[in-house]
Protein backbone atom coordinates (compact mmCIF):
# COMPACT_ATOMS: atom_id res chain seq x y z
CA UNK A 1 0.00 0.00 0.00
CA UNK A 2 1.16 3.56 -0.75
CA UNK A 3 1.32 6.05 2.12
CA UNK A 4 1.59 9.81 2.24
CA UNK A 5 2.50 11.51 5.53
CA UNK A 6 1.90 15.07 6.74
CA UNK A 7 4.03 16.38 9.62
CA UNK A 8 2.74 19.61 11.20
CA UNK A 9 5.23 20.19 14.02
CA UNK A 10 8.97 20.57 14.44
CA UNK A 11 11.22 18.18 16.32
CA UNK A 12 11.46 18.39 20.15
CA UNK A 13 8.52 20.54 21.19
CA UNK A 14 5.81 18.11 20.07
CA UNK A 15 5.95 14.37 19.58
CA UNK A 16 4.36 14.60 16.10
CA UNK A 17 7.58 14.18 14.13
CA UNK A 18 8.70 11.28 16.36
CA UNK A 19 5.38 9.51 15.89
CA UNK A 20 5.45 10.09 12.13
CA UNK A 21 8.98 8.73 11.92
CA UNK A 22 8.09 5.57 13.90
CA UNK A 23 4.98 5.07 11.75
CA UNK A 24 6.93 5.44 8.51
CA UNK A 25 9.64 3.07 9.71
CA UNK A 26 7.05 0.45 10.67
CA UNK A 27 5.20 0.84 7.36
CA UNK A 28 8.41 0.34 5.37
CA UNK A 29 9.39 -2.68 7.47
CA UNK A 30 6.03 -4.20 6.62
CA UNK A 31 6.71 -3.76 2.91
CA UNK A 32 4.56 -0.71 2.29
CA UNK A 33 5.73 2.24 0.22
CA UNK A 34 5.95 5.72 1.72
CA UNK A 35 5.71 7.99 -1.31
CA UNK A 36 6.29 11.28 0.39
CA UNK A 37 6.52 12.95 3.77
CA UNK A 38 5.31 16.53 3.56
CA UNK A 39 6.49 18.98 6.22
CA UNK A 40 4.12 21.86 6.83
CA UNK A 41 3.61 24.54 9.54
CA UNK A 42 6.42 24.23 12.13
CA UNK A 43 7.10 20.82 10.59
CA UNK A 44 9.54 22.59 8.28
CA UNK A 45 11.91 22.85 11.24
CA UNK A 46 12.58 19.11 10.88
CA UNK A 47 14.76 20.08 7.93
CA UNK A 48 17.06 22.46 9.82
CA UNK A 49 20.50 20.92 9.36
CA UNK A 50 21.99 23.02 12.17
CA UNK A 51 19.90 21.12 14.74
CA UNK A 52 22.31 19.57 17.26
CA UNK A 53 20.54 17.62 20.01
CA UNK A 54 22.37 16.38 23.10
CA UNK A 55 24.43 13.27 22.46
CA UNK A 56 22.07 11.03 24.47
CA UNK A 57 18.98 12.22 22.57
CA UNK A 58 17.64 11.22 19.15
CA UNK A 59 18.39 13.47 16.16
CA UNK A 60 15.24 13.54 14.05
CA UNK A 61 16.72 15.72 11.31
CA UNK A 62 19.39 13.10 10.73
CA UNK A 63 17.02 10.15 11.18
CA UNK A 64 14.64 11.48 8.53
CA UNK A 65 17.52 12.05 6.13
CA UNK A 66 18.88 8.54 6.63
CA UNK A 67 15.45 6.99 6.14
CA UNK A 68 15.03 8.95 2.91
CA UNK A 69 18.39 7.79 1.60
CA UNK A 70 17.87 4.13 2.49
CA UNK A 71 14.28 3.75 1.38
CA UNK A 72 13.87 6.40 -1.26
CA UNK A 73 11.32 8.45 0.69
CA UNK A 74 10.59 11.88 -0.77
CA UNK A 75 10.94 14.48 2.03
CA UNK A 76 9.29 17.72 0.95
CA UNK A 77 9.37 20.96 2.90
CA UNK A 78 6.63 23.49 2.11
CA UNK A 79 8.26 26.58 0.65
CA UNK A 80 5.74 29.10 2.01
CA UNK A 81 5.87 27.71 5.55
CA UNK A 82 9.67 27.40 5.33
CA UNK A 83 10.29 30.97 4.19
CA UNK A 84 8.34 32.32 7.16
CA UNK A 85 10.34 30.19 9.54
CA UNK A 86 13.77 30.72 8.06
CA UNK A 87 14.38 27.33 6.44
CA UNK A 88 16.12 27.84 3.09
CA UNK A 89 18.54 25.91 0.84
CA UNK A 90 21.46 27.19 2.98
CA UNK A 91 20.35 25.39 6.12
CA UNK A 92 18.41 22.54 4.49
CA UNK A 93 19.47 19.11 5.74
CA UNK A 94 20.45 16.26 3.42
CA UNK A 95 17.56 14.27 2.07
CA UNK A 96 15.02 17.11 2.14
CA UNK A 97 13.86 19.27 -0.75
CA UNK A 98 11.85 22.48 -0.75
CA UNK A 99 8.76 22.66 -2.93
CA UNK A 100 5.21 23.99 -3.15
CA UNK A 101 2.10 23.13 -1.19
CA UNK A 102 0.72 21.45 -4.31
CA UNK A 103 2.97 18.52 -3.45
CA UNK A 104 0.72 17.87 -0.46
CA UNK A 105 -2.43 17.77 -2.58
CA UNK A 106 -0.56 15.61 -5.09
CA UNK A 107 0.43 12.95 -2.56
CA UNK A 108 -3.10 13.09 -1.12
CA UNK A 109 -4.40 12.12 -4.56
CA UNK A 110 -1.70 9.58 -5.41
CA UNK A 111 -1.38 7.71 -2.10
CA UNK A 112 -3.81 5.13 -0.74
CA UNK A 113 -3.67 6.76 2.69
CA UNK A 114 -2.62 10.16 3.99
CA UNK A 115 -1.78 10.17 7.69
CA UNK A 116 -1.46 13.47 9.57
CA UNK A 117 0.75 13.97 12.63
CA UNK A 118 0.50 17.29 14.45
CA UNK A 119 -0.52 19.22 17.54
Amino acid at each position, binding site marked *: *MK*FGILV*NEGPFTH*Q*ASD*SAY*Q*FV*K*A*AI*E*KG*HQVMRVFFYYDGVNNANKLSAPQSDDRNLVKLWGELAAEHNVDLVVCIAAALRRGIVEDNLADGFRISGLGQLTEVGIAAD*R*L*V*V*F*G*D
Partner: protein
Amino acid sequence: MIHTVNKSPFERNSLDSCIRLSVKGAPILLIEDGVLAATRGTSVSDKVAAAMDDHPMFVLGPDLKARGLAEDDVADGITIVDYSGFVDLVVEHGTVQSWL
Protein backbone atom coordinates in the same frame (compact mmCIF):
# COMPACT_ATOMS: atom_id res chain seq x y z
CA MET B 1 -12.36 5.47 8.50
CA ILE B 2 -10.18 5.29 11.59
CA HIS B 3 -9.76 8.09 14.10
CA THR B 4 -6.60 8.91 16.00
CA VAL B 5 -6.58 11.07 19.14
CA ASN B 6 -3.24 12.39 20.36
CA LYS B 7 -4.39 14.73 23.12
CA SER B 8 -4.92 14.18 26.82
CA PRO B 9 -8.65 13.82 27.65
CA PHE B 10 -8.00 15.77 30.86
CA GLU B 11 -6.52 18.77 29.07
CA ARG B 12 -8.35 19.07 25.74
CA ASN B 13 -11.64 18.47 23.97
CA SER B 14 -10.17 16.34 21.13
CA LEU B 15 -11.50 13.01 22.38
CA ASP B 16 -14.94 14.51 23.02
CA SER B 17 -15.09 15.90 19.49
CA CYS B 18 -13.90 12.63 18.04
CA ILE B 19 -16.63 10.71 19.86
CA ARG B 20 -19.30 13.25 18.89
CA LEU B 21 -18.32 13.29 15.21
CA SER B 22 -17.51 9.67 14.42
CA VAL B 23 -20.00 7.15 13.13
CA LYS B 24 -20.89 4.05 15.09
CA GLY B 25 -18.39 1.27 14.52
CA ALA B 26 -15.45 3.48 13.55
CA PRO B 27 -12.35 2.50 15.52
CA ILE B 28 -10.48 5.02 17.66
CA LEU B 29 -6.73 4.75 18.25
CA LEU B 30 -5.22 6.65 21.18
CA ILE B 31 -1.63 7.84 20.61
CA GLU B 32 0.87 10.25 22.23
CA ASP B 33 -0.77 12.08 25.18
CA GLY B 34 -4.07 10.56 24.03
CA VAL B 35 -3.07 7.28 25.72
CA LEU B 36 -3.87 8.88 29.08
CA ALA B 37 -7.54 8.12 28.28
CA ALA B 38 -6.85 4.39 28.36
CA THR B 39 -6.15 3.72 32.02
CA ARG B 40 -8.62 2.44 34.59
CA GLY B 41 -9.94 4.44 37.51
CA THR B 42 -9.60 7.99 36.22
CA SER B 43 -12.14 10.79 36.00
CA VAL B 44 -12.61 10.04 32.29
CA SER B 45 -12.83 6.24 32.53
CA ASP B 46 -16.63 6.22 32.38
CA LYS B 47 -16.69 8.42 29.30
CA VAL B 48 -14.19 6.17 27.55
CA ALA B 49 -16.14 3.05 28.57
CA ALA B 50 -19.32 4.59 27.15
CA ALA B 51 -17.54 5.39 23.87
CA MET B 52 -16.50 1.76 23.64
CA ASP B 53 -20.13 0.75 23.21
CA ASP B 54 -19.93 2.36 19.76
CA HIS B 55 -16.24 2.22 18.91
CA PRO B 56 -13.53 -0.44 18.99
CA MET B 57 -10.80 1.26 21.06
CA PHE B 58 -7.05 0.86 20.55
CA VAL B 59 -4.05 2.37 22.32
CA LEU B 60 -0.44 2.67 21.22
CA GLY B 61 1.73 0.58 23.57
CA PRO B 62 5.02 2.48 23.06
CA ASP B 63 3.31 5.72 24.16
CA LEU B 64 1.82 4.00 27.22
CA LYS B 65 5.21 2.65 28.26
CA ALA B 66 6.94 6.00 27.77
CA ARG B 67 4.49 7.54 30.25
CA GLY B 68 5.00 4.80 32.83
CA LEU B 69 1.61 3.18 32.26
CA ALA B 70 1.57 -0.62 32.41
CA GLU B 71 -0.57 -2.95 30.30
CA ASP B 72 -2.31 -3.90 33.55
CA ASP B 73 -3.41 -0.28 34.01
CA VAL B 74 -5.33 -0.31 30.71
CA ALA B 75 -9.12 -0.63 30.92
CA ASP B 76 -10.71 -3.87 29.80
CA GLY B 77 -11.69 -4.00 26.16
CA ILE B 78 -8.99 -1.62 24.89
CA THR B 79 -6.54 -3.33 22.53
CA ILE B 80 -2.86 -2.44 22.80
CA VAL B 81 -0.97 -2.17 19.50
CA ASP B 82 2.56 -1.20 18.51
CA TYR B 83 3.58 0.95 15.51
CA SER B 84 3.25 -2.08 13.25
CA GLY B 85 -0.31 -2.56 14.53
CA PHE B 86 -0.96 1.16 13.93
CA VAL B 87 0.02 0.65 10.29
CA ASP B 88 -2.23 -2.41 10.02
CA LEU B 89 -5.20 -0.49 11.43
CA VAL B 90 -4.71 2.27 8.86
CA VAL B 91 -4.43 -0.27 6.03
CA GLU B 92 -7.56 -2.05 7.18
CA HIS B 93 -9.85 0.89 7.96
CA GLY B 94 -9.19 3.34 5.14
CA THR B 95 -9.15 7.11 5.61
CA VAL B 96 -7.45 8.37 8.76
CA GLN B 97 -8.87 11.31 10.65
CA SER B 98 -6.40 12.80 13.13
CA TRP B 99 -8.06 14.67 15.97
CA LEU B 100 -5.24 17.05 16.85
